[in-house]
């Protein structure tokens, strides 16, 4: 009894209900993700006046060095959320990549080093599992293309929650191993991600588990707003001119937008236009196709690309991502698998950041947009790198160099060094051809 009173007291100030994004119908703050009237997605409704009264730049700066410094903007009521150091990843000024592309002010938001599992998913899972505990779940689950599986399994282990994870059976070895180590129940489904998702929707209906991206989705997806908050704070409490981010379900993209809007709404940053551009792999580009064809609906596709973490053929938030790209004067582009590998290498060689295929997609789209004149060189541009390359090593195997194997003798080293310089020269000479 006391507990529930305390909970409701703590809850009322910043969030109070779930609200349908389509028809506006409101619901209690339970584990529910679709509107019963129109099947539109449910979102958390906040009291922004209460947030404005409570939050200032200095209260945020005095908070923890994690996503929980923005707790007043997140849908949890506890004072002790699950904090495994998630968030506050580096915003790197990318001068060498900028020079190569002909841009003047380029930043990389580097979630390849997010904690604890090296992708942006730790943000959404930290929020979802904190909320899952508040709602009384003891088993958590997810449908995943890999990164979400790693994150859910790891943070569930930390929080002492039972965990059952569903993935497509053809995932990269690193993502499978990086899930199993935390000892969840792992279901490798013989099918693509959209089929995994469908199965999970049916399981969520029957087993009473907290699925982070299904019945906990309204809470889960809010965690991505912190990618907007952090960039604004790290730029010195201002918004950039242009952002480029990968598009899978479209959720991350729309939540970065929402994060910026909320900071404007409560007076933490000045309002200004920010252009939103999205990146997809050609082998799974339903949102990019709709953008190109001027459609306001997204037709599902069957994915076939090395960028498995963003291979969602039936993107739930695709139409919202389309809308944001259009109304902010941004673009949505797609690149080939070869361009994705080149993008991964380009970021590694110019900035020392090893990203996974989704990051290669984003860098390749950045390059394509610059070359097409769709990013102005004077714009301050932030590129979101959301995952780590050590998890998708298969993708670049065979496209990178090999070590010089030498004897432990000085002359063997000298001969190899000479050979490497010759190879460098040959490569350099090939460039103009």
């Amino acid at each position: 009894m006391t507990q529930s009173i305390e909970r409701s007291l703590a809850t009322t100030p910043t969030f109070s209900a779930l609200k349908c994004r389509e028809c506006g119908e409101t619901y209690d703050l339970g584990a529910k993700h679709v509107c019963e009237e129109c099947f539109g997605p449910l979102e958390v409704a906040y009291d922004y006046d209460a947030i404005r009264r409570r939050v200032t730049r200095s209260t945020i700066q005095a908070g923890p060095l994690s996503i929980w410094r923005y707790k007043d903007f997140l849908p949890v009521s506890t004072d002790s959320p699950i904090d495994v150091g998630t968030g506050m990843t580096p915003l790197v000024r990318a001068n060498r990549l900028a020079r190569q592309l002909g841009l003047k002010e380029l930043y990389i938001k580097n979630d390849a080093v997010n904690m604890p599992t090296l992708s942006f998913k730790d943000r959404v899972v930290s929020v979802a599992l904190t909320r899952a505990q508040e709602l009384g779940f003891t088993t958590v689950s997810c449908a995943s293309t890999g990164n979400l599986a790693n994150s859910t399994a790891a943070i569930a282990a930390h929080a002492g929650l039972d965990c059952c994870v569903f993935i497509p059976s053809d995932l990269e070895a690193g993502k499978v191993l990086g899930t199993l180590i935390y000892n969840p129940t792992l279901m490798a489904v013989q099918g693509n991600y959209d089929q995994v998702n469908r199965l999970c929707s049916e399981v969520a209906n029957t087993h009473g588990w907290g699925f982070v991206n299904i019945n906990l989705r309204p809470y889960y997806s809010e965690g991505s707003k912190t990618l907007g908050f952090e960039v604004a704070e790290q730029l010195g409490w201002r918004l950039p001119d242009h952002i480029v981010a990968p598009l899978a379900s479209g959720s991350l993209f729309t939540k970065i937008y929402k994060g910026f809007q909320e900071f404007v709404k409560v007076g933490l940053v000045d309002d200004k236009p920010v252009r939103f551009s999205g990146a997809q792999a050609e082998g799974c580009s339903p949102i990019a196709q709709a953008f190109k064809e001027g459609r306001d609906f997204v037709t599902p596709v069957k994915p076939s690309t090395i960028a498995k973490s963003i291979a969602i053929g039936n993107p739930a938030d695709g139409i919202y991502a389309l809308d944001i790209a259009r109304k902010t004067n941004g673009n949505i582009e797609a690149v080939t698998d070869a361009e994705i590998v080149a993008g991964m290498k380009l970021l590694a060689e110019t900035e020392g950041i090893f990203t996974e295929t989704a990051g290669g997609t984003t860098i390749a789209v950045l390059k394509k947009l610059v070359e097409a004149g769709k990013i102005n060189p004077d714009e301050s541009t932030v590129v979101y790198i959301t995952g780590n390359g050590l998890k998708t090593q298969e993708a670049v195997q065979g496209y990178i160099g090999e070590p010089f194997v030498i004897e432990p003798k000085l002359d063997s080293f000298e001969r190899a060094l000479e050979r490497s310089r010759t190879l460098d020269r040959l490569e350099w000479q090939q460039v103009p051809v």
Partner: protein
Amino acid sequence: MAVKVLIPTPLQKFTNNQATLECDGGTIVELLNALESACPGIKARLCDDAGELRRFINFYVNSEDIRFLDGKDTALSDGDEVSIVPAVAGG
């Protein structure tokens, strides 16, 4: 033509909390009409005012999205399984 239909949680209040139903129909459109006679009110949740399937809902016939088949005109055979699944976020 008896078809098994999997009903998502938000619609189970129309089906006496049944998660599956047996229904007749040679196409998705016919199936929707049969569902409506069995569970009045359910069709308006699945279709908009113009009678088109709502965009946040997915229909699968034996695991295949009907948008890869013939949409709401997709033909159904005896013993087919039709799942109705709300859109899901990803990653």
